[in-house]
């Protein structure tokens, strides 16, 4: 988690006029190559982690098919072939559901029909749509990590933020979108921030470990939101199930391209990533936050307030999770139910770990997980393999990414140890 540093300056020394031409590659190229090599080495572990997860996932697919064992007894070769074919179909459906079908693209462009082109891009649009809340929750968890805090409560903060945003979405009427939408977004941020404030202040004042508090607040949030969803005034008329009123169209994120579901929430997410990056590495408050995260006693010795940083980090983290909530209720469902999040908050943990808590990496990791999610439904409808497989894959990816030594051990590669495998466990409240 070293701070981002300014790009290295190319060598500016002038070679003396009569010096012999250097036999080796001139300096700037070597530096660029060193940078690329470093980037490649940095990517090696995540890439291998993903590959390993897919391999294990393949085993899960095969071994969970009870008919496989029967067929194995009868004709091992054919059984294996069918099994591998099944894996191939599954992963193929996953990939196509995430990125699109190459033939569909070709046909669509050949035909020149706009509607057909749009249809071909639907998978990518779905991936972007799925990635949007993940960018927010990834940022939320990463911000916590940078301050040494483990925010497992992004899920609950997301719920509270979504509830607040939905309320503004249907309670405020007659406003133009450029007023209504920002209002709703801000409400979502505040809702999440308020839910993040609780564990923050408890940790700062009492030392209560944020892991347990945030997990408990998750369950509390589910129940609280469940209650609110049945409250008259919030619940949709004529319905007895917990669902909110429909939000006004003026509070919806506009789609990026008419007809596709991907919307400007994605752009907001990208902006958020840049904002978080700026905050962490170019602002005084971010400096303090990171110092507290690395070494709280030293930060205190240097005059920083650990309590203030803790509370600020948890509030910002909660607010980002709240924005994730807005991206769902104002961008996809347009109303609030108890099922708006299939675990976005927990995915955020995986994404933050994969990206080593750096905003740039979070965007890419979120796109990866978004792709997995987007592809899981088509995979399920095409092959019947439950979407939970994606959860398993994600868990495996986190595991490999969080233990680079594990990947190195398995593949016997020598990847240089990046500074510090982050360790947060310091026991409970001390």
């Amino acid at each position, binding site marked *: 988690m070293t701070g981002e540093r300014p790009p290295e300056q190319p060598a500016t020394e002038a070679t003396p006029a009569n010096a012999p031409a250097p036999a080796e590659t001139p300096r700037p190229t070597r530096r660029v190559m060193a940078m690329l090599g470093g980037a490649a080495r940095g990517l090696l572990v995540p890439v291998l982690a993903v590959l390993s997860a897919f391999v294990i996932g393949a085993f899960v697919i095969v071994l969970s098919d009870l008919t496989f064992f029967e067929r194995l007894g009868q004709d091992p070769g054919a059984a294996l072939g069918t099994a591998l074919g099944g894996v191939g179909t599954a992963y193929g459906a996953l990939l196509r559901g995430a990125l699109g079908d190459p033939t569909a693209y070709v046909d669509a462009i050949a035909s020149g029909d706009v509607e057909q082109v749009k249809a071909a891009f639907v998978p990518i649009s779905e991936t972007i749509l799925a990635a949007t809340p993940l960018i927010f929750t990834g940022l939320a968890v990463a911000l916590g990590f940078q301050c040494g805090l483990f925010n497992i409560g992004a899920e609950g903060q997301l719920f509270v933020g979504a509830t607040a945003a939905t309320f503004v979405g249907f309670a405020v009427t007659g406003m133009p979108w450029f007023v209504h939408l920002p209002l709703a977004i801000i409400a979502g941020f505040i809702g999440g921030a308020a839910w993040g404030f609780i564990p923050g202040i408890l940790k700062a004042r009492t030392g209560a470990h944020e892991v347990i508090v945030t*997990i408990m*607040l998750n369950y509390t949030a589910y129940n609280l939101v469940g209650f609110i969803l049945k409250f008259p005034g919030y619940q949709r008329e004529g319905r007895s199930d917990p669902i909110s009123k429909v939000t006004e169209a003026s509070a919806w994120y506009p789609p990026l391209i008419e007809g596709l579901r991907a919307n400007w929430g994605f752009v907001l997410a990208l902006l958020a990533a840049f904002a978080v990056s700026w905050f962490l590495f170019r602002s005084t408050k971010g400096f303090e936050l990171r110092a507290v995260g690395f070494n709280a006693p030293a930060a205190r010795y240097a005059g920083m307030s650990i309590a203030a940083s803790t509370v600020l980090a948890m509030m910002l983290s909660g607010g980002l999770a709240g924005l994730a909530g807005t991206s769902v209720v104002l961008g996809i469902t347009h109303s609030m139910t108890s099922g708006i999040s299939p675990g976005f908050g927990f995915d955020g943990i995986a994404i933050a770990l994969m990206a080593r808590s750096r905003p740039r990496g979070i965007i890419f990791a979120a796109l990866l997980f978004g792709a997995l999610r987007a592809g899981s439904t088509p995979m399920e409808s095409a092959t019947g393999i439950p979407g939970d497989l994606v959860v398993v894959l994600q868990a495996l990816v986190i595991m490999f990414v969080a233990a680079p030594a594990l990947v190195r051990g398995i593949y016997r590669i020598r990847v240089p140890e990046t500074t510090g495998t982050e360790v*947060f466990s310091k026991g409970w409240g001390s």
Partner: protein
Amino acid sequence: MTAIAASLGPIVDRAAVRRQRIFGIFYLVLAALAAFVLTSGLDGDAISKFVLKPAGSKTGLDIPNLVVPSVLTMYLVAGLCAALGAIQLVRGFGTRWAVVLGIVVAAFVFAFLTWAAAGKSMSLIGILQLTVLKALPITFGALSGLLCERAGVVNIAIEGMLLTGAFTGAIVGSAAGNPIVGLVGAGLVGGLLAALLAVLAIRYRMDQIIAGTVINIFAAGITGFVATRILQHNRELNEPERFAQIPIPVLSDIPILGPMFFSANIFLYALFVLIGLIHYGLFYTRWGLRVRAVGEHPRAADTVGINVLATRYRNVILGGIVAGVGGAYFTLGSTGSFVQDMTAGRGFIGLAAMIFGAWTPIGAFLASLVFGFADALQARLSILNIALPSEFLLMGPYLVTIVVVAGLVGRVRAPAADGRPYDKE
């Protein structure tokens, strides 16, 4: 964090005074709630009837029902809380603050129950019995956490181990047609998950909380995946035989305590044995001394020839087996069929119970009873149709956990090396 402790700790005077005042005000607030809120809308003549003998119980003494005048009871409780609150504000209770807190909370809870039962009849014994049953898996979780943390490893994955234990117990129990086989399977799978945690945390020095979280996510995913893929089409794999209730001959006739503690299935009895074993083991045997040394000061243990890493591996796996068995309670001891995410956070509550119980087995059990009571209240009160929405009751156990965890930091001491990977060099 040491820094926070350093700024709160030495100002013993200021923080203690602040805490004293907060408790005092808290007691007074409870008194006001009892006197004004709970009594409102109640008929002055109303009586609350508490049934103390389990319905359908044929043996044992005839215990009369506890009948109290509702409003009077509430005023009495209010008076007690107010008095204690006043004393707390002015003088405080010194070292007995915990006892007083317990008394006030218990009194208020009784007032609350009186309110809920006003004009009706409530099976108090039913709530108490359910308390013990709800506390069962929490205690197993707490014991699992205890075994791991006494050796210095934080086990956040108890939730996942409980879940896979429940899952394995159901499937193996159904497939084998025998719940005991299911129980063994659950324990083994719990041990396997724990072995994974141990390898990640000890050998690969992964952050223990991250490793535990990974295992939780993995457990949720794989149980959900297999439940959908296999169990939906093969119902017969999700219908295990459950363990029968076995009342212990003489003991189960003791009024109140008998039905609570001696009339359940073997899970409860196994739990008692386990608590006794762990308590004896940790504090009276060589094994326990070495485990505790590893958890407090692993380097010291290393220098006297104890194998720190092996001790940690052993304890974590043992903890996993305990959690797996505890998880099997959900299916083989309680409802029977596995449902996705059926553990609903009990593993984490178990961790809170472990902290509340100061990392001792008996303490963990008593703490789990508190959480179990909140859980049982929630289950029973929603049947009674009281004015409180069920969602708030459902929140109860979780809020209690937060209060406990926040209030106890610094008051109880974790094993000193808890959570830190051991570095040989």
